[in-house]
C-alpha cells in the first residue's frame, strides 16, 4: 500500500535530529558570534576562514553520529535507513545548517569505497572521513577533460611498491583546503579513452603535489588546480583494480547525480524560504501577482522532487537500483535550484545587487547545470539510455 506517513520510530528520529540541530547550531553559532536564526551570518565553508569553522561543525556532527548516519556504526555512522537519511537532510536544511564541506568524501567517494575497497581500505579511510580528519576532494576534471572526462591525460607510472603521478587536475572543489584527493589517472600509457585508467586515492601533503586555489564566480576560493610531479603513492592507493578505474568512477558519478548529491530537503527548505521572502517583499499589484505564480510554481517543483525521491527510495528499499534515470534527477534539481533563486532575486529587486545570502546562493545555484556532468550531457544520457534514441 502507498503510505505517505512516517512511522513512530521515524518521527522520533526526526524529533531527535531537530532537537539536536537546534541546540548545537545555536551553540556553534554563539561560540563564534555568528548571530542566530535567519540572521545568522556564517562564512562560507569554501573560503579559507570559513573552512576551519565548518570543520568544527562537521566534528560536532560526527561526535553525535550524524555525519554519515547511514554508515555502519563501526565506521562512525548509526546504520540509518535511507528514509532516516532523507529525514535528517530535511531537518538539516530546514534548520539552516551549513552546506557540508565533507560532502564529496562522504557522498561521492564513500559509496565507491564501500563497493570496491578492500576491508583494509575501508577501515583506513572511512572512519577518518566521517570524523572530518581526512578531507577529500574529487580530481576528475583536467584542463582539457571536462565534459569529455575520458580525454584525461594525468599519468600514473608503475614503480616498485606504488605509482608515480604526473599531470594536472582542475576545478577541484575545496581542493585548497582538503587533505586528500580521489581521481582517475592513466595507468596504461598505450591506452585511449575509457580504458587503462586507474582510480587512485592521493594525499595532498606529499612530495610532488602542489595545490593552487582560485576563485569561483560567487567569490569563494572554492576551486583548486592540483599539479603532480613524480608524486608517489603506494599500491594500496588503488581503489578497485588497476586499469579498471572508469567503472569505479562511473559508480561514483552515478551517486553524485543520483540520490545522494542533492537531497530534496535542501530544495524544500529553499522553497519555504522563498515563500517567506514573497510574503515579506510582495506589495499589492500586478507585478507581484505575477511573481506569486512563479513562487507557487517553484514550491510545487521542490515538492515534486521530494515525491519523486520518495518513489526512488521506495524502489531502492525494495531491491531496485538507480540507473540512467539519475540524469532526470540531476536536470530537475539543478534547474529547480536556478528557478527558485532567480525568483528570489526578482523579488529582491534592487536589493539583489547586495552580496548577501540569497544572491550568494543564487550564484551557487547557477553552477548546478554545469557541475556533476553538464545538463547537456545529462540530456544526452536521458535521451539515449532512458528513451533509447540512437547515439549516432
Amino acid at each position, binding site marked *: *500500500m*502507498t*503510505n*505517505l*506517513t*512516517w*512511522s513512530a520510530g*521515524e518521527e522520533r528520529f526526526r524529533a531527535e535530529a531537530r532537537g539536536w540541530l537546534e541546540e548545537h547550531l545555536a551553540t556553534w553559532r554563539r561560540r563564534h558570534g555568528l548571530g542566530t536564526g535567519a540572521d545568522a551570518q556564517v562564512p562560507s565553508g569554501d573560503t579559507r576562514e570559513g573552512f576551519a569553522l565548518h570543520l568544527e561543525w562537521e566534528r560536532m556532527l560526527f561526535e553525535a553520529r550524524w555525519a554519515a548516519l547511514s554508515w555502519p556504526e563501526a565506521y562512525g555512522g548509526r546504520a540509518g535507513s535511507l*528514509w532516516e537519511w532523507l529525514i535528517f537532510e530535511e531537518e538539516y536544511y530546514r534548520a539552516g545548517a551549513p552546506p557540508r564541506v565533507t560532502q564529496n568524501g562522504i557522498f561521492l567517494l564513500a559509496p565507491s569505497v564501500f563497493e570496491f575497497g578492500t576491508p583494509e581500505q575501508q577501515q583506513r579511510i572511512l572512519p577518518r572521513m566521517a570524523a572530518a580528519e581526512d578531507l577529500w576532494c574529487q580530481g576528475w576534471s583536467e584542463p582539457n577533460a571536462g565534459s569529455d572526462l575520458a580525454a584525461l591525460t594525468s599519468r600514473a607510472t608503475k614503480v616498485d611498491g606504488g605509482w608515480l603521478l604526473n599531470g594536472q587536475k582542475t576545478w577541484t572543489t575545496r581542493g585548497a583546503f582538503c587533505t586528500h584527493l580521489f581521481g582517475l589517472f592513466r595507468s596504461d600509457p598505450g591506452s585511449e579513452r575509457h580504458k587503462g585508467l586507474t582510480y587512485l586515492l592521493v594525499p595532498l601533503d606529499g612530495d610532488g603535489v602542489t595545490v593552487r586555489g582560485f576563485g569561483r564566480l560567487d567569490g569563494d576560493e572554492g576551486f583548486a588546480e592540483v599539479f603532480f610531479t613524480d608524486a608517489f603513492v603506494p599500491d594500496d592507493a588503488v581503489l578497485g583494480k588497476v586499469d579498471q578505474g572508469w567503472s569505479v568512477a562511473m559508480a561514483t558519478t552515478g551517486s553524485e547525480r543520483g540520490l545522494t548529491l542533492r537531497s530534496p530537503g535542501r530544495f524544500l527548505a529553499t522553497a519555504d524560504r522563498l*515563500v517567506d521572502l*514573497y*510574503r515579506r517583499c*510582495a506589495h499589492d499589484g500586478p507585478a507581484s501577482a505575477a511573481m*506569486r*505564480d512563479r*513562487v*507557487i*510554481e517553484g*514550491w*510545487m*517543483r521542490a*515538492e*515534486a*522532487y521530494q*515525491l*519523486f525521491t*520518495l*518513489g526512488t*527510495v*521506495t*524502489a531502492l528499499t*525494495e531491491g531496485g537500483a538507480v540507473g540512467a*534515470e539519475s*540524469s*532526470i534527477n540531476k*536536470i*530537475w534539481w539543478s534547474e529547480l535550484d536556478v528557478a527558485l533563486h532567480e525568483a528570489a532575486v526578482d523579488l529582491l529587486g534592487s536589493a539583489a545587487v547586495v552580496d548577501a545570502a540569497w544572491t550568494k546562493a543564487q550564484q551557487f545555484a547557477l553552477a548546478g547545470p554545469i557541475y556533476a556532468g553538464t545538463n*547537456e550531457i*545529462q*540530456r*544526452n544520457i*536521458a*535521451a*539515449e539510455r*532512458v*528513451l*533509447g*534514441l*540512437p*547515439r*549516432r
Partner: protein
Amino acid sequence: MRFAFTEDQLGFRDAVRSMLDKECPAEVVRAAWPDDGTGAGARAEPAAVAAVWARLADIGVLGVAVPEAAGGLGLAELDWVLLAEEAGYAAVPHPFVETVAVAAPLLASAGAPTGGGRSLAGIVGGTVRIAAALTPGHDGRAVPYAARADGVLVHARSTGAVHLLGPDEAGVHSVRTVDGAIDAADLTDRRCHDGNVVTAAPALVDQAFDRGALGAAAQLLGLARHMLDLTVGYVVERRQFGVPVGSFQAVKHHLADALVHLELARPAVHRAAYSAAVGSPNRARDVSMAKAMASDAARLVGAKALQCHGAIGYTVEYDLHLYLKRAWALAATWGTAAWHRDRVGRAMGI
C-alpha cells in the same frame, strides 16, 4: 513510508492496459470523430467505439468506485488513478473519469435519486454514461461528452448544489470542438430543481470536483506518455541527412525535456490520489498541484512531440493529433494550470 502501488493495483492497471491496447487503438479514437473530421456534435456511435465502453464494463472497471453493495468494487482514488492514466493513454473517447471517478462515488455517497436509467447499476453495467461540469464558475458551455451522455452533473452557482440533469433537462446543444472525439455540448437551459439535486453538502461537492481534476491529471499523464512513445518511435525510424533524426542533439534534448517533465508530474498525481484516498486535509492543494503539473507537462510533451515529428505530425492522417487534442481539452477543463496554481497558493496562505 511507501510510495508505490500494490501488486493488485499494478495488475489491474496491466489488465486495463492490454485490453485498451487491443480494443482502443488509434483507429477507434478516430472512429469517434464525426465523419467530416471537424468535431461537429452527436451522431450514431460507431460499434467499435461503443465496444470500448462495454469491455470496460466487462472487466469491472466501470464499477471500480461503486460500493460493493451496489455491485461495484468499492475502491478508492489510489485504485483508479492508474486506470485513468491508461484511459488517457488510449484516449478513450468516453466520459470515463466523469462517470467512473466522479459520478459513481458521488451518487453512492449522496444517496441521491439515481433512477431513470441513471442508476449505479447502470454505471457498473455500462449502460449509463455521465458528463460533468463541476469546475467552479463553469458556465455550462462546451461540456465534454454532454452531447451523448445519459446525464450531466452540473454545479448550480446560486445554491452551490450539484444536480444530475437528463439530456432533456440540460438544453443540450452540440458544439464543434478541437478534439472531435469528445462530443461536447453547450447546456443552454439547465433546469436544476429539488427533483434532480444530488447533494448540496459542500464537502461532497468539493470532493467530486477534486476527483474530476485528479482523474483529468491522471489522463494527462497517460496522454503525455503516449505522445512521447509515438515520438520516440518516429525519430528512431525517420532519417534525414543520412541519419535517424533522433540522433540529432536538438531532438534528444527536446525529448529529454519532455521525459523529465512527465516523470516529475507523475508522483504529484499519485500523491494527490493518496491524499484523496486517505482524506488528507491537504487534498485540495495536492489535487491542484497534480492538475497544474500534469497539464503543463502534457502540453510541453505535446509541443515537443509535434516539433520532433515535423510536418507529418501536423496531418490528421497521422495519429499524434488525436492524443494532442485530447491533452489540450483536458488541460483546459477541470481548471487550467494557472487556476490550480492559484488554489495551491491559497492553500499555502499566500
